[in-house]
């Protein structure tokens, strides 16, 4: 019998694109969380090196204050990823627990929970976030992540509720009831594993949208930015006129490319996970 982790990698490797996504994701995580310990953040202004094109000294060139762009890319991922992971976790946790309760219990509980979800769904998120940004201090990424998570669960919750509604009528759930295996077993062993890939997909998609909302807020300047991050870089590249200089294209392109790469790695990794969670897709 193979162990869990071995099995995980065995099935992951079967999907080549997914495995590539997994590797890229690992690389990005390594770059953003571990590399900063070895490469110190250098934010010193060098007037003589403003908007320099890529060179050996500055592989991606320099920004409007003569600072190294590669250095900022390395240090700028942590914030974006922190918010993405936290917001994804929070929104998925809410979506799964409320969706499972709503679908399993039904009746009035279901009615109340789905109407709450509907109300939140109808609120346009981005303007709301922009307005809230004026009142709430987003200095810590935890605050922003919580807010993004609290706003993004209803869609996933509704689809998880629908899945639970269909799964709970299946014969194998009925068999578990006849065997008196208990509600806990039915929910966590019979129903949730059957929608695990669905849950993971939802989590990754909510991480994806958290990245966009967060970066969007920063680019537009709604969130006061205190640290280096990819969103802040795009904001400055835009507002300080990097697009008008031939040599400084990288200041705008590098953070955009990193964000796109991060999103791509998430989505393709999610697809590979489908094979891990669904035994029928493993093709044994």
């Amino acid at each position, binding site marked *: 019998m193979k162990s869990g982790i071995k099995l995980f990698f065995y099935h992951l490797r079967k999907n080549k694109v997914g495995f590539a996504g997994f590797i890229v994701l690992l690389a990005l995580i390594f770059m953003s969380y571990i590399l900063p310990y070895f490469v110190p953040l250098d934010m010193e202004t060098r007037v003589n090196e403003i908007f320099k094109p890529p060179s050996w000294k500055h592989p991606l060139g320099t920004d409007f204050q003569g600072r190294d762009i590669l250095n900022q890319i390395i240090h700028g991922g942590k914030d974006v990823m922190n918010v993405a992971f936290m917001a994804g976790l929070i929104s998925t946790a809410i979506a799964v627990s409320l969706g499972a309760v709503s679908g399993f219990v039904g009746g009035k509980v279901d009615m109340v929970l789905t109407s709450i979800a509907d109300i939140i769904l109808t609120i346009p998120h981005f303007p709301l976030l922009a307005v809230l940004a004026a009142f709430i201090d987003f200095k810590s990424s935890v605050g922003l992540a919580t807010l993004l998570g609290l706003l993004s669960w209803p869609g996933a919750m509704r689809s998880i509720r629908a899945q639970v509604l269909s799964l709970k009528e299946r*014969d*194998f759930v009925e068999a578990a009831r*006849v*065997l008196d295996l*208990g509600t806990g*077993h039915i929910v966590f062993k*019979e129903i949730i*594993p059957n929608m695990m890939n669905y849950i993971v997909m939802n989590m990754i998609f909510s991480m994806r949208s958290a990245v966009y909302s967060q970066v969007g807020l920063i680019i537009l300047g709604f969130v006061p930015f205190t640290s280096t991050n990819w969103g802040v870089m795009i904001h400055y590249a835009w507002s300080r006129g990097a697009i008008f200089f031939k040599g400084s294209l990288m200041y705008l392109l590098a953070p955009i490319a990193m964000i796109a790469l991060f999103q791509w790695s998430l989505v393709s990794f999610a697809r590979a996970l489908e094979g891990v969670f669904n035994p029928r897709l493993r093709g044994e």
Partner: protein
Amino acid sequence: MAPIIELKHIGKSFMVKRGIFSEKKEIKVLDDVNLTIEEGEVLALVGESGCGKTTTAKIIAGIHKPTKGEFLYRGKNVWEMNKEEFERYRRAVQLIHQDPYASLNPTMRVFDTIKAPLLRHKIVEKRKVYDKVLELLEMVDLNPPEEYAFKYPHQLSGGERQRVTIARALTVGPEFIVADEPVSMLDVSIRLSIIELLKDLREKMGVGFLFVTHDLAMAKYFALEGKTAVMYLGKVVEYGNTRDVIDNPLHPYTQVLLKAIPEADPEVTRKKEMPKLRSLDVPSFLNLPKGCRFHTRCPLYMEGFCNKKEPKLRQVSSTRKVSCWLYHDEEGNVKEEAFKGVL
């Protein structure tokens, strides 16, 4: 002693709504069903699709709650039991589903499926669970058991899956098994081996069975020493020893059902004289015929009688019950001359 399973005037209805403005309508899927099953007895429940067989099975398995009447397990109403009694009932009565492709969780290996009830009900210690699972798999003829234990349902054939569901039902040591058409979804070639397995379990372990089927031949094969009940549109129309019911059917519906079984030899089937049904359509539950429910199709229909009043299931001999105006009158007096030649 009280019989193990007793249905008393059981009725089950569902509410349906057609369209936004129409009123809710009640569909009586079961109407005044009375059945008694003694310890270790086999009862075959026969009828065509949609007659309420599966609903009856699910009421006995405790999945559906009857809307009328009482369902008793060992003399106690299941839906008024305290927690302890209900748990005992749950373990004593098990269900085998019709479709083995739907009744096994696709994300669980055979081992996990069988392990769960063993551990939940503390039937074996944790370290002995593996041996117990293998023992159960061996009992249902899945050999070698070590190989089957770590397979996923999608890696098994229909017959193998059904064996796993049987092993799962056996984990809790049931006294009574509700088998809801356990072989109808399987290939004809493996049906017999599954039936043999169930028969074997019955003989070795003394497990009682409710064997739901639409196939009279299967009912005869499995429940030859037991009882047979024939259902039509939510009512039991005939009840008796399997041999009697099948060799000497009394109710016109049973007679027609028996005639409808095709013979292996097409020559014989073609030459067989088929009874003349008045209509081939089964009436809808939403629009049940007045009087006897079978009168719209009955070949022995008596005008002005069958379409006026509904007959009740009446005792016509010491072991036989039938609900047909041919055999008894309204007061329950048996018209002996009607079946003198038959019995």
